[in-house]
């Protein structure tokens, strides 16, 4: 039997920088995503989505990953979080995602 790894998608999410703390804690953003996802789609779906936090170099962008088959639950979850978050890039590899983020940063001021 072939042992295949489940496909993942990497998401770059833009968030506001808190004026006092300088940065909204990445973990608290991840928690707000998992909490909202559980509210909307249930705890089982959230666990199966296997959401992971990946460190980002930009202070107003966080990178998360989730399983490809659950991406259509994760995207609405992110769009329906208050304070708002914006998914700016989705990619199948971290390398491509980082390259894409860099391209955006080179072209526009975020």
């Amino acid at each position, binding site marked *: 039997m072939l042992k295949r790894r489940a496909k993942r998608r990497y998401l770059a999410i833009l968030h*506001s920088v808190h004026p006092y703390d300088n940065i909204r804690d990445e973990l608290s953003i991840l928690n707000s995503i998992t909490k909202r996802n559980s509210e*909307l789609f249930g705890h089982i779906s959230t666990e199966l989505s296997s959401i992971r936090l990946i460190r980002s170099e930009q202070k107003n962008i966080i990178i998360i990953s989730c399983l490809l088959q659950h991406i259509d639950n994760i995207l609405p979850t*992110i*769009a329906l979080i208050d304070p708002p978050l*914006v998914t700016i890039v989705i990619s199948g590899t971290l390398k491509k995602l980082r390259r894409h983020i860099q391209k955006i940063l080179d072209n526009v001021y975020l």
Partner: protein
Amino acid sequence: MAQISEIDVVGIDYAGIISIDNIIYRINRKPDELTSYPYLVVCKKIEEISISSTDILVVEDFKRIEDNLKRIARKRIGLEVTISRARKQNGPNIGKWFNQIRNLYKFCKLNDYQFILSSGANSELEMVSGRSFDSILKICDIKPEQYWRDLAEWLETKYQRMVFVNA
């Protein structure tokens, strides 16, 4: 930001300044004279709807819309639902919101209105990417390709109706 979010045309409130291309201005009243910009007349209350000029009605209470709209509004008007309102709701209410979208879409299809799902953004951070719109539509049993095609066709008919003065 719209480009990053894979949105081709953005609708924003008209504040007297005309900026770049790919923007449609949202105004409250049809201008008396020709304009140098594309616009859509947006109405937020069903009581204030103008039969001749309103292009979009923002839907807040779906039940009231369903009961009253058939009598007063002309066909092909856009019925807009905003994501920003849902964002502030709790889980159960968002569940209801998804169901309302599904019902509103069916209502629009049956009665020849244009269903519009909008971010309702007041800032760049409140914008919603094209891919996220697709996922929300899928949850509501709406085919994203069909939705975007219908919306583009509807916008095209609005463009044809408008006469601009080249700025």
